[in-house]
Structure formats: structure tokens, C-alpha cells
């Protein structure tokens, strides 16, 4: 048993290290050379009739690709220009929005409250905070025509900031689930390996290539999907679907209550091959195809990394409906897959795509999130669950339609 525990620990370490390695170990360790000052266009390329705007021409001390793109942006006080004399705002960019710490903190309290009451919707609220509440979306959009490269790099920074908040909860979840042995290791390893590939591909292929409008549009689509899932959960059919998973959970509860040996009551591996793996959970056999799990991880992690969310909303239905695992094990296994894909995509965005980070912004938000998650369970009990779900359905449809229309059609169909 001790050997099995050791194997699990080392498997986790191996997966985490692989995530770092896959995300480009060389670029991670090595320092990105300071951005070279933007070269003025060659005289031959200049059209004498058009007055070219003066470029910033320096990275302004900003790291990696952010500095490179800042140097290429036009200098000035107008929209879509960098005012080098202005105070530095988010991501250290002069003239960028400077949301007050109180606003950041209060919104993060709300995000933490949502995390602790509704779960995944907290990630959506974190994204809404970055794009709309803190004013980053409107600012980044101004560079669409004047400095497209900066527009895309800042979009990557927003995506990465979203993932940080969502992913941190998975770190805590993984530790807790490890302690309570609610982890299916063979499945976790197959999904985790797929997550590394999917998150790396999505972050490296789309990093620096997606404009803010495109990102906002796709984020809107994602929010609408979540809204429809919430609606489905309220229907009788959706309610019935949860019963099967509850049955296995109750079997677990029963064994715990009968004070059985919890050590042996976790998930145990019965047989393993590249096409079929069987594990036993409370006397019931569960089989899955490791190759299918791997490709499931690739697809889910790619979508999550692209949108900048955790992915638990996809892993959970995948594991319960396709693999057929009980919720008690699904929660822990999906948290592990989310953690692996988050590490991969964040390191890829920062190192391969060169996304800049505003650490103080993340730190302030985290303070708010932990206070919100403390307040949430105490206050949510005064609001009926059905009302809470209805509230989030309305929010999801509103935000989804707004972002979808603003991103893909240039103007919002709802007041925003």
C-alpha cells in the first residue's frame, strides 16, 4: 500500500513536471532578451503622402513580447495610442486603466462568493471582471487597428489572468481530494497527459493571434453554453440524471459511516492495458479506454486554455456520462486534470506567447476571493437554491448575448 502511495505521489510530480517541460522548458528557464527598440520603417517603404504616426520605439521596461509590442505601438494621447507620460496602469502599460484596489477587491469577493455557492460560474465572473468591470476590454479594443499585435498580446494577458483565479482553486481541491483518496489515478494520468498536449497546443497556436473581439465573442459563446446547462439542470430530465451518480456516492458514504477501512475503500486498479483499464470502487468495476481519455483530455484542455477557464465544467460531465464514474471520484480526478492543464497553458501563454502578468492584480483578487468564499456558505443559505440558479441563468444569458454580439458583431445587443 505504501508503494502504491509512493507511485501516486511520483505520478503527480511527474505530471506536474511534464506540464512545465512540455510548456517549453527552454523558454521558461531562459530569460527573454530585452525587446529591441522598434526600427523605424525603411525609407523605401514609407509613402510620402501619408504621415506615419510616431512609434513608442522602446519597450518601456516591460517584459518579453508585451515590451516588443509596446515599442511598435503609436505614441500619443489619443485612442489606440500609448501615452508614455501617463501613469502606468494594468500590466504596467502607461495610460492603461487603473481600477481601484477597492473595486478589484470587492469584485473578487463576489467571485469568491459565487465560487463557494455555484462553483464553475465563479470563473465566468472572474472573466467579466477583467473584461468589463475593470475596463480592460474597452481599452484593449482601442488597439485593434492601430497596434494589432498589442491588442492580441494584452488579450493573452487577460486570458492568463482569468486562468490564474480559476486554477488556484484546483490546487487546493487536488490536495484535499488526495487526502481523502477520491482520485482515480489511471484515469487522472491519461486525462492529465492529454491535458498537457491540448493546453499546450491551444496556448501556443492561438497565443498572440487572437484579437480581443474574437476572444470576447468566444467567451460569450462559452457563457451561453453554461447558461443552457444550468437551464437543463433545472428540468426534470436534468434532475433525474443526477440520481445515478448519487447512488455510488451513497455507497461510499455508507462504508465511511460503517467505519470500514477507508484506506482500502478508495479506487483500486484491477487491470490496465493501453485500450482498456478497469478499476474497482466499492465492489463495482468501472472500465475506460485510456486512449479515449487521453483524447478527451486533449479536446477539453484545448477549449479551456483558449477561453481561459478551468475546464471542470467539461471534465465532470465527460467523466460521469462517458466514463460513468461516481461523483465522489469525478470531483478529484477532474480537479487534477484542471490543475495540469492550467499549469501548461499559463506557462505557455507567459513564455511562448509572451503574455505579461499583473501579479498585484491577481494577489488583490485572491484576497477578495478567499474572503468571498468565507462569506458565501454563511450567506447563501438565506437564498433558496432554485432562486440562486435562476439568478445565474439570467446572468449567463445576459453576459453571453452581450459578449457574443459585441465580440462578433461590433455592438452589444443588450445594454453593457
Amino acid at each position, binding site marked *: 500500500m505504501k508503494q502504491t502511495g509512493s507511485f501516486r505521489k511520483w505520478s503527480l510530480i511527474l505530471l506536474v513536471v511534464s506540464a512545465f517541460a512540455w510548456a517549453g522548458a527552454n523558454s521558461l528557464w531562459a530569460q527573454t532578451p530585452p525587446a529591441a527598440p522598434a526600427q523605424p520603417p525603411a525609407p523605401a517603404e514609407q509613402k510620402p503622402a501619408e504621415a506615419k504616426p510616431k512609434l513608442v520605439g522602446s519597450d518601456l521596461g516591460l517584459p518579453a513580447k508585451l515590451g516588443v509590442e509596446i515599442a511598435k505601438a503609436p505614441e500619443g494621447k489619443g485612442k489606440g495610442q500609448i501615452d508614455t507620460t501617463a501613469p502606468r496602469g494594468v500590466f504596467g502599460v502607461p495610460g492603461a486603466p487603473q481600477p481601484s484596489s477597492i473595486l478589484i477587491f470587492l469584485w473578487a469577493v463576489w467571485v469568491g462568493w459565487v*465560487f463557494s455557492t455555484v462553483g464553475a460560474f465563479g470563473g465566468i465572473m472572474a472573466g467579466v471582471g477583467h473584461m468589463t468591470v475593470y475596463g480592460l476590454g474597452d481599452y484593449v479594443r482601442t488597439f485593434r487597428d492601430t497596434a494589432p499585435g498589442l491588442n492580441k498580446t494584452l488579450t493573452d494577458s487577460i486570458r492568463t489572468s482569468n486562468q490564474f483565479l480559476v486554477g488556484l482553486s484546483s*490546487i487546493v481541491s487536488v490536495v484535499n481530494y488526495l487526502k481523502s483518496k477520491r482520485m482515480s489515478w489511471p484515469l487522472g494520468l491519461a486525462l492529465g497527459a492529454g491535458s498537457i498536449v491540448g493546453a499546450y497546443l491551444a496556448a501556443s497556436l492561438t497565443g498572440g493571434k487572437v484579437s480581443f473581439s474574437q476572444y470576447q465573442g468566444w467567451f460569450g459563446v462559452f457563457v451561453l453554453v453554461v447558461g443552457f446547462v444550468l437551464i437543463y439542470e433545472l428540468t426534470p430530465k436534468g434532475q433525474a440524471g443526477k440520481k445515478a451518480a448519487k447512488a455510488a456516492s451513497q455507497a461510499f458514504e455508507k462504508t465511511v*459511516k460503517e467505519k470500514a477501512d477507508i484506506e482500502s475503500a478508495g479506487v483500486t486498479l484491477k487491470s490496465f492495458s493501453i485500450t482498456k483499464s478497469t478499476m474497482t470502487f466499492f465492489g463495482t468495476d468501472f472500465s475506460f479506454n485510456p486512449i479515449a481519455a487521453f483524447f478527451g483530455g486533449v479536446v477539453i484542455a484545448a477549449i479551456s486554455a483558449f477561453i481561459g477557464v478551468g475546464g471542470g465544467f467539461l471534465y465532470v460531465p465527460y467523466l460521469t456520462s462517458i466514463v460513468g464514474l461516481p461523483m465522489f471520484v469525478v470531483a478529484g480526478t477532474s480537479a487534477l486534470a484542471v490543475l495540469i492543464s492550467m499549469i501548461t497553458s499559463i506557462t505557455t501563454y507567459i513564455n511562448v506567447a509572451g503574455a505579461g502578468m499583473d501579479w498585484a492584480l491577481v494577489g488583490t483578487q485572491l484576497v477578495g476571493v*478567499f474572503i468571498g*468564499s468565507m462569506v458565501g456558505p454563511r450567506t447563501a443559505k438565506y437564498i433558496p437554491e432554485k432562486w440562486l440558479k435562476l439568478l445565474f441563468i439570467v446572468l449567463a444569458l445576459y453576459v453571453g448575448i452581450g459578449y457574443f454580439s459585441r465580440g462578433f458583431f461590433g455592438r452589444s445587443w443588450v445594454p453593457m
Partner: protein
Amino acid sequence: MWYYVDPYLLPLFGLTGVRGLDGLIGTFLLALFVVVIGEFTISLVFRANRKHLDKLNSNLKKYSDLSQEALRRGDETSYKALNKQANDAYGHVFFNKFGLSAAALWPIFFALDWMQPHFAESGISIPFYPSGAHYVVVFLICYILARIVFGRLKRHLPYFKGQYEMLRSYDQEGRPPGDGKR
């Protein structure tokens, strides 16, 4: 903002004068400071929420015991209802633990925010990588080491000793200290 902090933190990165060691020692000490602040925050949040956490843990134990009794009597309907209550109680305990853990992680990002302007371009010289490694990677490695070191030390430190015993009893028993035996 960090202008006032520099005179206190920068000397940590020049303690030995040996290039390659200074960066590592400085980052480790900063990470240790971050761990201590995080643990201190946990202790404050824990004290503030202890009554609430005790109540949640008591609820979990109550519903668990009742559902077990229902099972013994063969009352399946009550068993299922109580089991659901116990499951909900577990969810509440879990999210409280999430809040406690987030309380420990927040200082990391302020430390990275301080490091960014100082080390983002030059990197941090460490043994076997004198040209400068990425500051985030060096910090995270030092943070893990600092957590391990502090985890061993805190059971001997005056303030954190009591906290360590209390949290350990929660981890091991999933219930408030003195609330029944294992």
C-alpha cells in the same frame, strides 16, 4: 509602491557576495517571508471563523451519525435524506478549507509583483545557471522548499505551535478538537 520596500528586500539578494548563491538565498528568504505571512493570515482567518468551522464540522458529524443510525434501523428513506445532508455539510467544510488555503497563497503574487521589475529582464543567477533563470520559476521552487522548511519549524515556534496542533486535529479527525474520538 515597492519603492519603500526595496531597502529591506534588496539587501537579501547580496548576503554572501557570491554570484549564483545570492539570488538563490535572497529568493528563498523572500519565499520564507511569504510563507510566514500566509500562515499568519491563515491563523487570523481561522480564529475569526473557528466558531463557524466548528459548527460546520459538528453538522457533518451529526448527519453522518444520524444516517448511520438510520441505516442500522433499515430506514432507507431517512438514510438517503440524511446522507444528502451530510454531503451538503461536506461541501461547506470543503469550501471553508478552500478559503483558508487561499489565505495562504495571496502573498505569493505580491512577492512576484515586487520581483518583476527587478528580475524580469536580468533573471536570477543560480548555481548551474549563472546567466539567469526565470524569476517565477526560481521563486516557485524556493516557495515549495520554504513551505517544507516552515512546516517542520512551525511546530516549535511559539505562535504557530498552537495553530499547528489545532489544524492537525482538523485534518486528522475532520472535526473540532475534543469533539469525540477517532
